């Protein structure tokens, strides 16, 4: 019994940690580069799970579904980043004029319409208004959650795992769900790819420079605003793939977004924003804390994650591996 | 022997592995005009920050009129008569000029904790603020928002905020930075008018102004005091020429 408990809990912790890494690596990069927590990230994860479900019931291969689902969410992320969080002046003007054309003009508010156009023409978007950007992501998360409810109803949906992985694996007399081990494997591969991307490519070097000092990076001619888009694409895609991968374990259901988002936040705060290593270590730390915490001290189930978070913030505000002061 | 206005002994500060100040010792007598010079990165502003308490030293002591400052918060040092200006303008850009000075005055008044009274009801504060503005030639247009004023006016506002507090020790971090020739002249005159009961320590790159203003000069280089002495001594010293004045 004792052995079984420790082994399974440990495997659980690392498997859950792997899933968390899929969610929080992108979250951390966005956080590090753009200095804002993307509160729609849980929504991306949930959307990935739902899209995966719709693909899977149409007979698409699981891994293809994960990729497609991830990419779809990634594209949505790009749209959100380009049009909502960092809209260019042209886009702002277009949206503003559209509102003007459908609301103010037909109502005959000519003077008002003029004043409005004057105002939006001068407006520079949310550049530098980080509080505004956070709220945007929150607004987006509301919409994503509500649209998911509309499309997929409120019923929880189960994503079938690939048939070959459904049977439990027996290791030395202990049974363990095969699929979770595979998820862990995928997460490790993703981590390795991200590591190579960040450390061995020009793009990665630019992202790291941007995380360390955005202004300096801009000064060196790095197209920071394009990096924002790329990181958002990357982060949203990872979250989407994570959603599909997590689907067979967690299911897709309304509320999945708000269940996962705080975990991503905790990972990033423990590990430090903008640090891939931090996200990696943080994910597994949270995996262990979560699994062992609620098993060993069930009465503290609700604090087992938030207490370390408060402590880290108070005494180590950059997180374990953070490059950025929050 | 009189107590020095500012006495720094063995001040050390490292950032990561890099030493920003290395065993700096300094003694400024009451009423003195002291100039701190040195190339960029010499640790001048760091030394200021250590004196004001913005940074904590790794070791060393700072005394203001004989009182040990280490462990004291910035605001407590200010209450002992310390004031400074910043090289990079540190103002309240959305507020009026007079409000900026009022905030400076409030800093030393107990009534700053009053959450109930109308600030505008305290006539004497506004009168004092107006006086401080007049001192730097900003009496007109005190109701303008800082964001609408010129750079030179803002530099003078920096000074007015410090002067308004009637400090015993005034630390000026490049008060002439970014000013036109004409403006420099104005500020120089202004500095000359500061009464002798205020001790002044100043960082400045504009040698013409600085040298004519200062009585004693300290040269910092890589966080270390290289030369210290009177104007003539320092200018004459070959080490100064080598690291700073030379070519």
């Amino acid at each position, binding site marked *: 019994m004792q052995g079984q408990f420790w082994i399974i809990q440990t495997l659980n912790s690392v498997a859950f940690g792997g899933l968390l890494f899929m969610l929080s690596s992108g979250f951390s990069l966005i956080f590090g580069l753009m200095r804002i927590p993307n509160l729609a990230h849980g929504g991306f994860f949930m959307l990935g799970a739902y899209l995966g479900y719709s693909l899977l019931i149409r007979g698409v291969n699981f891994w293809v579904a994960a990729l497609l689902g991830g990419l779809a969410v990634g594209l949505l992320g790009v749209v959100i980043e380009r049009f909502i969080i960092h809209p260019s002046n042209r886009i702002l003007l277009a949206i503003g004029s559209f509102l003007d054309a459908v609301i103010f003009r037909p109502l005959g508010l000519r003077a008002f319409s003029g004043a409005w156009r004057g105002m939006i023409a001068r407006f520079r978007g949310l550049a530098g208004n980080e509080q505004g950007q956070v709220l945007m992501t929150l607004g987006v998360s509301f919409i994503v959650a509500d649209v998911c409810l509309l499309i997929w109803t409120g019923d929880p949906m189960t994503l079938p795992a690939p048939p070959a992985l459904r049977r439990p694996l027996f290791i030395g007399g202990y*049974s363990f769900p095969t699929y979770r081990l595979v998820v862990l494997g995928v997460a490790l591969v993703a981590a390795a790819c991200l590591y190579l991307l960040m450390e061995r490519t020009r793009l990665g070097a630019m992202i790291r420079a941007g995380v360390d000092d955005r202004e300096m990076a801009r000064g060196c001619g790095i197209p920071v605003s394009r990096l924002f888009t790329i990181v958002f694409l990357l982060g949203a895609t990872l979250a989407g793939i994570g959603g599909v991968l997590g689907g067979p374990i967690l299911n897709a*259901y309304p*509320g999945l977004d*708000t269940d996962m988002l705080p975990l991503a936040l905790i990972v990033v705060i423990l590990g430090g924003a903008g640090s891939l290593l931090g996200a990696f270590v943080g994910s597994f730390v949270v995996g262990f804390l979560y699994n062992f915490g609620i*098993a060993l001290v069930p009465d503290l189930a609700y604090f087992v994650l938030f207490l370390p978070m408060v402590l880290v913030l108070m005494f180590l505000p950059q997180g374990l591996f953070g490059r950025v002061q929050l | 022997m009189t107590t020095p206005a500012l006495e720094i002994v063995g001040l050390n500060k490292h950032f990561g592995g890099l030493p920003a100040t290395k065993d700096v010792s300094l003694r400024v007598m009451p009423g003195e005009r002291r100039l701190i010079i040195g190339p960029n990165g010499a640790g001048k502003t760091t030394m200021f920050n250590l004196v004001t308490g913005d940074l904590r030293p790794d070791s060393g002591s700072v005394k203001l009129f004989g009182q040990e400052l280490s462990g004291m918060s910035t605001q407590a040092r200010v209450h002992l008569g310390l004031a400074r200006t910043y090289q990079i303008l540190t103002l309240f850009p959305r507020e009026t000029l007079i409000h900026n000075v009022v905030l400076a005055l409030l800093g030393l008044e107990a009534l700053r904790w009053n959450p109930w009274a109308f600030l505008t009801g305290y006539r004497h504060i506004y009168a004092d603020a107006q006086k401080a503005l007049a001192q730097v030639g900003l009496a007109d247009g005190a109701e303008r928002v800082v964001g609408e004023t010129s750079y030179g006016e803002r530099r003078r506002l920096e000074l007015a905020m410090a002067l308004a507090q009637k400090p015993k020790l005034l630390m000026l971090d490049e008060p002439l930075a970014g000013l036109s020739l004409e403006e420099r002249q104005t500020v120089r005159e202004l500095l000359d008018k500061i009464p002798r009961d205020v001790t002044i320590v100043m960082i400045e790159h504009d040698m013409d102004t600085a040298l004519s203003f200062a009585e004693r000069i300290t040269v910092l280089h890589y966080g270390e005091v290289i030369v210290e002495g009177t104007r003539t001594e320092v200018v004459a010293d070959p080490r100064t020429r080598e690291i700073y004045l030379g070519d």
Partner: protein
Amino acid sequence: MTLHRRKVLKGIAASGASLAVLKAPYVQAQAGPMKVGFLTIKTGPLASGGLQMEQGLTVFLKERNNMIAGRQVELHTADTAANPAQARTKTQELVERLNVSVIIGPLAAFEALAIDDYIRSSQTPILTVAGAEDMTQRKANPWLVRASATSAQPSHPVADYAAKELKLKRVATIADDFAFGHECVAGFQRVFEDNGGKVVQKLFSPLNAPDYGTYIAQFKPDLDGIFTGHAGANGLKFIKQLREYGSKVQILGGFTPVDESLLQQMGPEALGAITGNWYSAQLDFPINQKFVAAIQADYKVDPGVYAAETYVSGEVLEAAAKAVGGKIEDKPAFMKALKETNLATSLRGPMKFDEFGNVVGNLYIRKVEKKGDKYVNAVVKTYPNVSQFWTYKQDEFLKNPVYSRDFPPAKNLEN
């Protein structure tokens, strides 16, 4: 401030129609349609159950051409968003602005409890579907009837069945860590242990637990069964993960975990699970067969307990409305009729109410089986005439504290 006022006025304009209603004399209101309020959850994580409730009620009204006891029904649906404060506001809106005579709902216990005092003070008959035990026990609300069941009512017979028929001895329990889960498990534990069984582990998982692996790892390997009181997505998650970990243990459950609405999603994992419920889509009453067909036709799903709840509530409402000649606006008389409702046939079989307004009726032991290509809750045993007090004496039952995490105390835990 002008903006402020304008907004308020706009709100009034939007509800212009109801203005007339509010001022209309009482008698006139009676002649018009019968106003029924319906509190459900249409947004947020609990929306699934709420939407099914709406399906059940819609089918009920459609079957009757929107006429009850000879009167047109005007249904006002309100979304409580599973938030107690919003449930309260919506109830006030139904009663004060829309002037409904009776309310069906809400779904969650905390919502029902949040409006409890308001129901009393506004004297509005309510047919609730929430399970909270004390609403029909120690703190019974005279304006409330519950045609579904208390949280633990269906747990009692499962325990009885598990102990006597399945001869299980050692069982672990797990449920969501909120009042419904606590009550559901407590009822099971009491009856099971009174019949010689032992509850050797009691786990409660947070409502928003993303993963049950950590709980499953804690289960002892030599259990005879695991009783789950999870609801909604959590039940689905739990049972799937239990099987993923290779556990083949007998699953027992209250009335929520293997609901028909989730059964097809669970697939083979749920096979063999034994649960207690007052309803199953497999019940062979004609009323139910018609109901199941209608839900399948309209929504392409099997009705589960949430859809059945509102349908049964509708049946009770109809019977009582007929008893008072359609005059449901006479609240005391209507309330009396509601409590006196005694149906020989209904969606759930024969049913009546006890003095507290809680249902007394059949409870079914159901087993998940595969029928054709579908998974169903086949009825394996019927316990007739079950009250919320099970076989215990009412007075003694009520002298005990209400079911909770700590009552009845767990004497047989092993660690």
